[in-house]
């Protein structure tokens, strides 16, 4: 018996989100690497200076990316905030089995997982950390770079600590994010290439999203709002 997958494409990540994500990726990776170098200081004076310069340039790119996306796609930002800060008993149940991933990887067992919306509970936690941590990193980074002499000394120290902790937390998330992103390959292709996931993938991992928010599109690409 052959099993046919429903391959009809659902748009998951629109073009503006993908461009934002690409610039975020290209700026955050050097930021994380140079941030660790700046913290541990293993290089010579000239090497550390170059590291600092790269950190600043990548930081400015990330800040501009975030500001531009917030201004130009405010609706996406609001939807993202709404999603990552929504919480229900499903999230508790999801965290109790950790999305079924450890059982799948370590024991080769499939356990029942509560139905998820566009993002699962782990992605929501990560999203909230990126949103809050990213904002802290950008704002504190600007102060530490531009006006450490003018700001009060205790505030500069506090912002330095906040910058360090946020940076370490987000850097710690990075390998987990990269691994799971590649593991969910349909979603990976959607974010990195064309924006679409096949219907069967969305129905398996994000059934609530398909059920509640997905509608067929009309010929010109607009959602046919029929609710």
């Amino acid at each position, binding site marked *: 018996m052959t099993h046919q997958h429903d391959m*009809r*494409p*659902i*748009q998951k990540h629109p073009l503006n989100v993908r461009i934002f994500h690409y610039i975020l990726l290209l700026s955050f990776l050097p930021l994380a690497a140079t941030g660790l170098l700046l913290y541990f200081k293993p290089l010579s004076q000239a090497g550390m200076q170059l590291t600092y310069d790269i950190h600043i340039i990548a930081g400015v790119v990330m800040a501009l990316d975030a500001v531009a996306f917030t201004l130009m796609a*405010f*609706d996406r*930002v*609001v*939807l993202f*905030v*709404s999603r990552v800060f929504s919480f229900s008993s499903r999230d508790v149940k999801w965290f109790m089995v950790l999305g079924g991933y450890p059982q799948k990887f370590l024991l080769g067992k499939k356990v029942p997982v509560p139905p998820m919306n*566009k993002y699962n509970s782990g992605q929501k936690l990560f999203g909230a950390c990126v949103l809050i941590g990213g*904002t802290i990193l950008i*704002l504190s980074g600007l*102060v530490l770079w531009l*006006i450490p002499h*003018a*700001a*009060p000394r205790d*505030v500069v120290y506090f912002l330095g600590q906040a910058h360090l902790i946020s940076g370490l937390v987000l850097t710690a998330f990075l390998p987990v994010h990269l691994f799971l992103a590649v593991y969910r390959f349909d979603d990976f292709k959607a974010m990195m290439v*064309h*924006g*679409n996931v096949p*219907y069967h993938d969305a129905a398996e991992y994000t059934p609530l999203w398909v059920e*509640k*928010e*997905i*509608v*067929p*599109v009309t*010929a*010109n*690409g607009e*959602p046919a*709002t029929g*609710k």
Partner: protein
Amino acid sequence: MSKKSYLFAEDSFFLSRRKFIAIGAAFAAALALPVGWFSSKLERRNEYIKARTEGLYKDDAIAKLRVSHANPAVEKYYKEFGGQPLGHLSHDLLHTHFVDRTKLS
């Protein structure tokens, strides 16, 4: 690029207008609060220096003796011992001599 590469998409209006505005406003407020906190800190960064300056001026204004040459002890010194201000003895006793000790080694 093709005009439409997908058959399904998110319904743009799945969030009600009221909820959209509430979340948007909460997001803007969450950004504005730390910025406001920091700018007020920045604005008030020299307040303790200003307060100290003000205190010193206040002490000065209420002081009995406001100039050193009206100090009775100084007057007594010149009258009974030092002679004239900037005189020879006062110069010898009160002026500091500089010795260059930068090349001791």
